[in-house]
């Protein structure tokens, strides 16, 4: 659904694993008007400060379980629906994460409801600080 602000302003952070920063994460809502199975997500493109993450480095976490975008293609279980109005966590693997300080993000969602002759595309930009 066009025009909605979809980031959680409180959720931009670096992600640490075993004492090392392995990437960054943020939370977004799906830009559509009903809950969806992850299988109809066609793409999530993340660009921070002009740098677009490779598709294989983008992860989506729903209900505590992290999926690659490739895995999302077959996820249809009720436990992992992206519910309307709920945040999902997007993690981008990037060694060292983001530097402390201000950043700019552009995220592009592409969702394909079966009845539509086209995919629902939604861009949202925001400034944030790590």
């Amino acid at each position, binding site marked *: 659904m066009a025009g909605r602000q979809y980031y959680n302003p409180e959720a931009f952070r670096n992600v640490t694993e075993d004492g090392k920063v392995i990437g960054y994460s943020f939370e977004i809502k799906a830009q559509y008007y009903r809950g969806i199975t992850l299988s*109809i997500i066609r793409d999530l493109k993340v660009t921070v400060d002009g740098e677009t993450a490779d598709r294989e480095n983008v992860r989506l976490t729903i209900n505590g379980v992290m999926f690659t975008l490739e895995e999302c*293609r077959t996820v249809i279980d009720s436990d992992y629906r992206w519910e*309307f109005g709920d945040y999902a966590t997007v993690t981008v693997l990037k060694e060292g994460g983001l530097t402390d300080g201000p950043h700019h993000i552009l995220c592009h969602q592409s969702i*394909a409801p079966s009845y539509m002759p086209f995919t629902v595309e939604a861009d949202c930009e925001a400034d944030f600080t790590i």
Partner: protein
Amino acid sequence: MSADIKRSVSLYSYQDEYYNKQLDLEGCLRETAKTGATGVELLAEQMIRRFPLPIETEEFREQWFGWLQKYGLTPSCYDAFLEFKLYDNRTLTLSEQVNMMKRDIRLASLLGFTNLRTLVSTPMNVIEGSLEYAEKMGVRIGLEVHAPFSLNSSWADGYMEMIQRTGTKYFGFIPDMGIFCKNLPDVVREKWLRRGAKPECVKIVDECYLERVAKGFTKIKYDLNLGKANMEYRMANGMGEMMAAVEKAGGKEADMGYAFESFVFSWSDPQDLIDNIDYIYHTHAKCYNTHEDYVETATAIPEVVAAFKKAGYQGFLSTEYEGGEHLRADSPVDSIEQVRRHQEALRRAIEG
């Protein structure tokens, strides 16, 4: 038969408040009841978390029917979404699609609905393959007739042929009042003006729309390729000439945007409702902006209600507020107030 027109609210209307967590499912039912509506239309996939599992549980159903009793609401229509492209590498087979349709019929029935909305993208053989089950479950399948589609068209004839061939009483139409727009919604016009559309180009688009209404729209043809059918329909209704006129007047991106979007709306003669009344089980009372004086900006409420009265309509007019998507980029959306006003507009037309 004398008409018995009832009022309902589709919870689709409250999507902005639901998205912002100002309303949950019960909150939407409470707001619906406050408007005086007695019916509720549900998009289960929108507001029932972990769809469809809870509907299978007695615990959830007890809560659902408890709410309906508490707020004095009757289930009017269950909006199904046949996700036949569930995976990106194939379309579900006919059997899989029929099974999905039967699942939705069953879910609708479990929640007390006797009408199920299906979308125009639903293949005819999926509908036909579900009819016996629909009859068994007492749930009527209604095909949404949404612009650019219309009743009394070669598109609708294909379905009418199926109705007559099978003799079914469990398939019909759910007209969306977006097919009865006498003019373009003001919220759409204002959105494009905010985006830089020029008043002289906006005027061309508005006048072209009124001309189409006065002349009568050329109706869309039946074609499995909806994109192709839609483009032919647009061209037959003068889109080429209108785009050229807007461009000649110095139209830029926003002007073209308004011109293009004007084809999302259409006008049908309300006589179409009378002609097809035996097959109309439910109605989406689409609305975009209802003013303080209870006048809706685009949809022909008085004309539509008059036609339904004449035809002896027994179903619901279910408010489907869709103005929010033209506002939310720039300003807050108050669906609760919009639905309230629209219900009052319907009440006045029905009781007046």
